């Protein structure tokens, strides 16, 4: 088959699977089989290259980075669906390319998980990379946190122009040693007094507080963007050492910190000398745009049910779960926890024992659900958190939870596949955006 025909075939399959409401990666899988170099060829045509974002909570950060670059007038191609495999990128490409084969974008910002990023950078050398953190949620897929770090090292080494690194994650910070000579390294970080708020998984049981990149005795490198303070939606940064204020309407303190990463990336990409177009308003326009970012699917997404808000909060590692719990007063909410152990969630639920649930003691938990509901109930029992009901069936639980909330705002902490199921079930009772 000729190449345009292969592409048209892929686009047809994509349209058909979209109508069926089906998986977003299948048409990409087809393209991978019929035309293996498709993704690399298309991305090579982009005038300003490819940006790779990798790390836990990469989706919201990617969304922020895309919006920030769009605010500068760039046409940005991204893999929005959360299908972050190479074939997911291929599927996203099929949607963007016109039927005549025109790919109308200036730059690509792609969120890739660590293992797929390794495959991806073999085919496509990114011009920029933003590497966020190494957390434990990939533990039973990759075996060790240090394995995850080695994967990201390959991404850092393949990046041709600049990498932006999280200064406060020791494994990410050490990636500065892996970049090629000639590739710039920029940092985003936390002020000293905020650091204790963001424990890494290494610090969970460390008594001396977080281990920082500077712990080895070397002074911490100066951050391009440093998060210095925040209260509610008011966020203070130091950008190039100068104070800057922004509003960030995202749930969870880790999202505020990731905003610092996205901002550092946008500043790096549009830095003078890179010949990437940007708004005359520069930094001010980027800070304005941050206020317009809404959460990516499941990352603090709010769905209205008969006038009452229900928040879906994705949890996948101890640090993230802890921060989500700390982001609001639990007594003010009806609370449900949904823990699945499918492959995409991670089969191992040991990590739940490294989350502290004492903050839920006063308000209790209305429902515990998911394949590992009983594990979760057992965990809460050992933290003396009252659990009102345990129901492994997600749909059944959701209906009971909504009924029992009696108008209280609702929070649901859920693992990845539990969230997918709950979103489907929510469609019966509320308007849920397509993903």
């Amino acid at each position: 088959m000729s190449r345009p025909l292969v592409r048209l075939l892929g686009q047809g399959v994509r349209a058909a699977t979209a109508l069926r409401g089906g998986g977003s990666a299948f048409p990409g899988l087809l393209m991978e089989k019929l035309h293996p170099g498709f993704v690399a060829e298309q991305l090579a045509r982009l005038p300003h290259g490819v940006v790779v974002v990798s790390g836990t909570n990469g989706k919201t950060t990617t969304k922020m980075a895309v919006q920030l670059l769009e605010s500068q007038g760039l046409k940005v191609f991204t893999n929005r669906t959360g299908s972050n495999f190479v074939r997911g990128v291929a599927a996203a490409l099929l949607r963007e390319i016109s039927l005549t084969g025109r790919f109308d974008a200036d730059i690509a910002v792609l969120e890739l998980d660590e293992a797929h990023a390794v495959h991806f950078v073999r085919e496509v050398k990114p011009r920029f990379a933003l590497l966020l953190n190494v957390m434990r949620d990939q533990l039973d897929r990759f075996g060790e946190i240090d394995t995850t770090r080695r994967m990201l090292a390959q991404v850092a080494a393949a990046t041709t122009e600049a990498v932006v690194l999280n200064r406060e994650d020791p494994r990410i910070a050490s990636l500065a040693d892996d970049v090629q000579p000639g590739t710039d390294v920029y940092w985003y970080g936390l002020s000293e007094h905020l650091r204790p708020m963001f424990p890494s998984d290494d610090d969970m049981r460390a008594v001396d507080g977080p281990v920082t990149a500077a712990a080895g005795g070397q002074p911490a490198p100066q951050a391009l963007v440093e998060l210095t303070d925040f209260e509610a939606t008011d966020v203070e940064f130091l950008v190039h050492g100068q104070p800057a204020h922004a509003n960030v309407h995202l749930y969870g303190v880790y999202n505020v910190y990731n905003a610092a990463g996205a901002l550092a990336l946008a500043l790096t990409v549009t830095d003078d000398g890179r010949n990437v177009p940007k708004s005359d308003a520069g930094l001010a326009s980027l800070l304005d745009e941050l206020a317009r970012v809404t959460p990516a699917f499941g990352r603090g997404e709010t769905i209205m049910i008969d006038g009452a808000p229900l928040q879906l909060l994705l949890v996948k590692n101890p640090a993230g779960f802890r921060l989500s719990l700390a982001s609001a007063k639990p007594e003010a909410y009806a609370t449900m926890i949904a823990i699945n152990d499918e492959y995409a969630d991670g089969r191992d639920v040991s990590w739940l024992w490294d989350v502290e649930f004492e903050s839920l003691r006063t308000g209790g938990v209305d429902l515990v659900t998911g394949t590992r509901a009983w594990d979760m109930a057992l965990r809460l029992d050992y933290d003396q958190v009252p659990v009102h009901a345990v129901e492994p069936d997600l749909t059944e639980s959701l209906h009971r939870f909504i009924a029992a909330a009696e108008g209280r705002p609702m929070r649901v902490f859920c693992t990845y596949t539990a969230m997918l199921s709950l979103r489907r079930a929510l469609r019966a009772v509320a308007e849920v955006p397509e993903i």
Partner: protein
Amino acid sequence: MTTTTPMFPTAPDSGAPEAHFAESGGQGEIHLVQLYPRDMNIYGDWGNTLTLKRRLEKRGYSVKLTDYNPGDSFPADGDLFVGGGGQDSGQFRVMEDLQKIKPVLHELVRDGVPMLAICGLYQLFGHEFRTIAGQVLPGIGIFDLTTVGGETRLIGNIVTESETFGTIIGYENHSGLTRLGDGQEPLGRVVSGAGNDGEDGTEGAVTREVIGTYLHGSLLPKNPVLADHLIATAVRRRYSHDHLEPLNDALAARAREVAAARPR
């Protein structure tokens, strides 16, 4: 799967016999020592410590909890020791420190002090760990076993059967392959999963009152029989009796049923 839903208005086991002591601490103190929590903490090992602590408190014992990290002065008066798994880098630091406290640990073992060593610490409680690269990390030889680095990790849900403790349920994630010496008693026989080396059908090791295993999940919350065995041993040594009030383990029983039925 649908299940009839019990209601737990407050604590699920309120009204059970353990309420008798009302967590007064009046039964005396037990000194619980967590080994290397800073370096060996990555598979929910806190769950084991928490389970021991809570189950002691429910029986009316007060718990003195000590974290022992490399370089600390060693709490040789501990009644019960527990330690977990870590990254390779953490394992190296721990290995060096273990050599220093080796004599006192051996003495405690001879005295019948109960210990639980999971995963990385289990390996270091053997003779040695030989990495794929050929590097040899010396262990402290409490167990008669050696571990060699394997090409593939053994990862997934695991069920084993022990004559003493019944069915043991957990999750394994290790690349080290552990071979038991001729006289070394295993903790259990593998029913499903890989176990010590994925071949000989054994899992873990038991020497005197020391239990070594690859299982986390965490291990003790879902295996209350093991937890209570460790507790009873500690209580017997300190207070010359080993009567433990039964606790309501209905939640653990349900979690065990589910875990045993999940895919690898």
